[in-house]
C-alpha cells in the first residue's frame, strides 16, 4: 500500500483518547485489588492475634514494606506498558531495593530456625492450602492488571509481566500474613515466599506470551 494512502486512512480513524497517567492507573487498580483481597480476607476471617501482632513494630514494618513493594511494582508495570519506559530505567530497580529490607525484617519477625530439617519437615507438612489461597487472592486482580497492560503498548513484555505478578503476589502475601496465624520461618519460606517467586517467574513467561505488543 502507498504510504500516503495509509496516512490518509490513519487520519480518517483519528487519534485515540490518551490513557490515564501510570500513577493514576496504579492507584485505581490498587484500590480495586485491595477491596477484593481484603474483602475476601474479611469473609474468611483474620488471624486471631492480629491486634497483638499489629502492635509489634516488626510485623507492621513487614506489612509496610510488602505494601511498598506492591505499590512500586504496580507503578513499574503501568510504566512498562508504555513504549518510552527506557526514559525511566530506575523504575524496575525500586522493587529489588525494597525486597532486601523486607527479607531482613521478615526473617527477624518470624519464629523458628532455618535449617535443612525444619525446611524438610515443613515441606512434608504439605500445606498446599497456602499457595492455593495465594493463587485465589492473586488471579482475579492479576488478570485485570494483565488486561489493562495489554491494552497499552508494552515493549518490555517480560518485565511488565514480572512486575504485574510481583505486585499482585505481594498483595496476596500481605493477605496471607493477616489471615494465617503461622510465623514459622520454614513454613513462610516453603509455602509463601517460594510460591510467590514461582508466580513471578510464571508471570514473566505469561508476559512474554500474552503481553507481547504486536
Amino acid at each position, binding site marked *: 500500500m502507498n504510504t500516503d494512502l495509509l496516512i490518509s486512512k490513519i*487520519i480518517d480513524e483519528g*487519534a485515540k*483518547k490518551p490513557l490515564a497517567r501510570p500513577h493514576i492507573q496504579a492507584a485505581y487498580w490498587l484500590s480495586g485489588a485491595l477491596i477484593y483481597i481484603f474483602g475476601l480476607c474479611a469473609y474468611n476471617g483474620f488471624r486471631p492475634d492480629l491486634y497483638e501482632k499489629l502492635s509489634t513494630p516488626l510485623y507492621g514494618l513487614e506489612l509496610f514494606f510488602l505494601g511498598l513493594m506492591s505499590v512500586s511494582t504496580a507503578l513499574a508495570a503501568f510504566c512498562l506498558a508504555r513504549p518510552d519506559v527506557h526514559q525511566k530505567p530506575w523504575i524496575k530497580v525500586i522493587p529489588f531495593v525494597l525486597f532486601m529490607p523486607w527479607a531482613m525484617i521478615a526473617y527477624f519477625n518470624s519464629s523458628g530456625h532455618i535449617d535443612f530439617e525444619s525446611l524438610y519437615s515443613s515441606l512434608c507438612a504439605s500445606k498446599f492450602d497456602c499457595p492455593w489461597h495465594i493463587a485465589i487472592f492473586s488471579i482475579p486482580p492479576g488478570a485485570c492488571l494483565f488486561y489493562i497492560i495489554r491494552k497499552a*503498548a508494552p515493549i518490555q513484555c517480560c518485565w511488565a509481566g514480572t512486575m504485574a505478578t510481583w505486585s499482585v503476589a505481594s498483595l496476596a502475601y500481605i493477605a496471607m500474613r493477616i489471615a494465617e496465624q503461622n510465623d514459622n520461618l520454614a513454613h513462610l519460606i516453603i509455602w509463601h515466599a517460594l510460591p510467590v517467586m514461582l508466580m513471578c517467574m510464571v508471570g514473566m513467561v505469561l508476559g512474554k506470551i500474552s503481553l507481547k*505488543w504486536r
Partner: protein
Amino acid sequence: MQKSQQGDKSAYGQLFYEITPILRSFISKKINRQEDVEDIVQEILISVHKAGHTYDTDRPFKAWMFAIARYRLNDHLRNVYKKREYGQDVNFDDVSYDLPNKENVTERYENQEYLSSLLEHLPEKQQKIVVMMKIEGYTAKETAAKLNMTESAVKVSAHRAYKALSLIAEKDM
C-alpha cells in the same frame, strides 16, 4: 500530538506527514533494501497510530516515537533472521550494483590527489593536524598529545587550516 488527542484530525495528519520522512531516513540508515524500508516505515506509522493513547504529552514525542521505531525495526530484523532470508539466493548482479564502478574509483582517486595538492599549500604543522584529525580520525585531544601541543592550540590551528584550505579551493575554481 496533543492537538490530535483532542480530536484535531488535521493536526493528526500533519504530524504523520512530518514524521514519515524522519522515520524513512532513520530506517534507511539501518536497512539497505528500499522496499523493506517502506514496509517498516508503514509498520511504524501503524504502530504510532495504535499506541497513540500511550503518549504522555508532558514527555518528549520523539523519544516515544523512536522507541516504537526501534521496536518495529528489531521485530523486522528478528523475522528476517528467523526466516534466514539473509544469505539465501545471493544475486551477484545486486552485489556488483553496490560495488563502486570504475568511474567512481578514478573520481575518488582524483579527489584524493586534489586534496593532497591543497594540503601542500599549508605549513607542515597544520598539514599534520588536518591529516591526523580528518583522515586518520584522531580527536583534538589525541592530536594534541601526539604533537606535544595543547588541545586548544590544536583546535585553533585546525580552524585556521580549514579556512586556508577553503580559500585556496575557492581560488582554484
